[in-house]
């Protein structure tokens, strides 16, 4: 809201640039609230004016009082105008963007290159499509990634008013890496012979696109027909819900989280899971249910013969005592699936290397914080020392802090630094935001966007915030 206000003020240089917080409260489309904000703004202007008078002393003459009252009116008027601009600005922008949809001559990037790619899906993207934008449909995205879309992606869509993402070299490298694992080339055309990595940890600075890249990878893999275990919020496995110590394993069970994990996994993969049979026939160990204690009669639950992974997951969802056991069993089953490629994609992966929200009481006065590795579900999925394809993306939104370079259960060469925008990518981004009317055409210049790029140091969200201030 504040940014929209700034944009509207930047767009109207002739008017007063005074920004009063009441304008934010006044940014409500209903006229009654506008009028109330107008009176509030005038009262506030009057109050501030009167404070100024008290500080300076009584006005010397009636003429001074008149000029001051005029100034107050101008202030109030500018506040109202800013509030009006705020509301009308968004509507105008949307209307103009709808009109611009018909004008394809505007879809031009730097050096006359097309701004949008013609590829219909992520699988069809090639190196020529790098540094172009790919259009998506929000509805289809939410169907393919029903767990949740990354926060950064939703923000980008909302602020640019178009569901499109930049195709980056780093994403294409990631995609091609996993493509090479599943479909290895007969002869490596590259003499260097780049080897494909099955386990990757995406690390990098704040807002460099890790979560979006992971979500796009999961999207691509699901389009290819893979079985993808996508966790958009790894932190939710270690925070919230209930936790009980399992005396048999010594780990901590989180039945509420386990049920949520199974439900999320089932959302997109239901049809695929119905075709995959269970390969492990051992009974599933039972633990504490969510708020109902342990089962008195039984310690384990046997799965009927011929069960599929879908039946296994349904058992975990319906029987709260078995939910954690099913999640652990699911991890083992996923490693035995050979019919289709399996990809495990974990966002906020770094929250699995620090302490959880849970604590264990040790004495009458003290408690011991429980580490994430002691949680049964995290313990099952955290390790990368296996032969399955797995990608973990770090997140700076979880206040985990700095982790050591050699993480436990993670191969030493798995950590990949995800880069921020390069100069070419920043050029495309600036042209895209110009196309989306986030920047005024008369203010746009190469020098200006380069300045903002260096100011933001390639941080995508910062650039999006700064570009409307281009003068």
């Amino acid at each position: 809201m504040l940014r929209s206000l700034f944009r509207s003020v930047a767009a109207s240089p002739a008017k007063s640039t005074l920004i009063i917080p009441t304008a934010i409260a006044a940014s409500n489309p209903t006229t009654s609230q506008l009028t109330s904000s107008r009176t509030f703004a005038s009262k506030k202007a009057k109050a501030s004016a009167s404070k100024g008078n008290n500080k300076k002393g009584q006005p010397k003459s009636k003429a001074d009082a008149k000029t001051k009252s005029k100034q107050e009116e101008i202030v109030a008027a500018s506040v109202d105008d800013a509030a009006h601009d705020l509301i009308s600005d968004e509507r105008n922008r949307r209307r103009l963007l709808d009109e611009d949809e018909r004008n394809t001559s505007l879809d031009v990037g730097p050096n006359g290159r097309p701004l949008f790619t013609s590829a219909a899906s992520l699988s069809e993207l090639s190196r020529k499509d790098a540094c172009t934008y790919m259009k998506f449909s929000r509805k289809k995205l939410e169907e393919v990634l029903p767990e949740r879309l990354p926060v950064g992606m939703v923000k980008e869509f909302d602020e640019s008013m178009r569901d499109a993402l930049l195709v980056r070299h780093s994403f294409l490298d990631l995609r091609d890496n996993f493509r090479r694992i599943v479909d290895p080339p007969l002869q490596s055309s590259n003499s260097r012979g780049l080897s494909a990595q099955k386990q990757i940890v995406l690390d990098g600075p704040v807002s460099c696109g890790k979560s979006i890249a992971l979500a796009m990878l999961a999207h691509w893999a699901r389009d290819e027909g893979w079985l993808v275990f996508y966790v958009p919020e790894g932190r939710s496995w270690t925070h919230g819900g209930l936790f009980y110590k399992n005396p048999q394993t010594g780990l901590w069970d989180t039945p509420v989280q386990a049920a949520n994990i199974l439900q999320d996994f089932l959302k997109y993969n239901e049809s695929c899971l119905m075709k995959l049979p269970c390969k492990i026939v051992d009974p599933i160990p039972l633990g504490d249910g969510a708020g109902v204690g342990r089962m008195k009669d039984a310690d384990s639950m046997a799965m009927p013969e011929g069960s599929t992974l879908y039946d296994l997951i349904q058992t975990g969802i319906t029987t709260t005592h078995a939910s954690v056991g099913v999640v652990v069993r699911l991890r083992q089953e996923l490693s035995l699936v050979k019919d289709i490629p399996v990809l495990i994609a974990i966002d906020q992966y770094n929250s699995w290397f620090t302490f959880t929200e849970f604590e264990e009481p040790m004495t009458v006065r003290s408690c011991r914080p429980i580490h994430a590795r002691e949680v049964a579900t995290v313990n099952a999925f955290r390790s990368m020392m296996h032969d399955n394809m797995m990608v973990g993306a770090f997140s700076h939104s979880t206040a985990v802090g700095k982790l050591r370079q050699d993480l436990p259960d993670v191969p030493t060469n798995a950590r990949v630094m995800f880069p921020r925008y390069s100069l070419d990518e920043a050029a495309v981004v600036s042209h895209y935001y110009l196309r989306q009317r986030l920047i005024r055409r008369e203010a746009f210049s190469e020098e200006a966007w380069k300045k903002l790029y260096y100011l933001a140091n390639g941080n995508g969200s910062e650039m999006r915030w700064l570009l409307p201030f281009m003068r």
Partner: protein
Amino acid sequence: MLYISGARSVADEQVRIASTKIDGIGPKKAILVRYRLGIIGNIKIKELTKYQIDQIEQMIGQDHVVHWELKRGERADIERLISISCYRGIRHQDGSPLRGQRTHTNARTCRKQIRK
């Protein structure tokens, strides 16, 4: 409205706050009871199952002195001091402060008992 160990609890209140409404349970003991039962702080009373509420009551009843037992114990200690006619007992009887405070001025809180 729900009663846990004799203390009234609002359904929308968090467990960590509702537990402290019990006489004899403060913030530290409330945390201890919660973590023993595997309950996170931001879970509300209305989200608890009957089994969990019973467990809370059982744990509080077994390990902690609360409500009338706590008050009875405090009263018994005071009466013991009075019965052995020690300095502190006499001060309790007189309604004066007994921890070395001044009485020339102030001491209003202690003497409130007499005025009542």
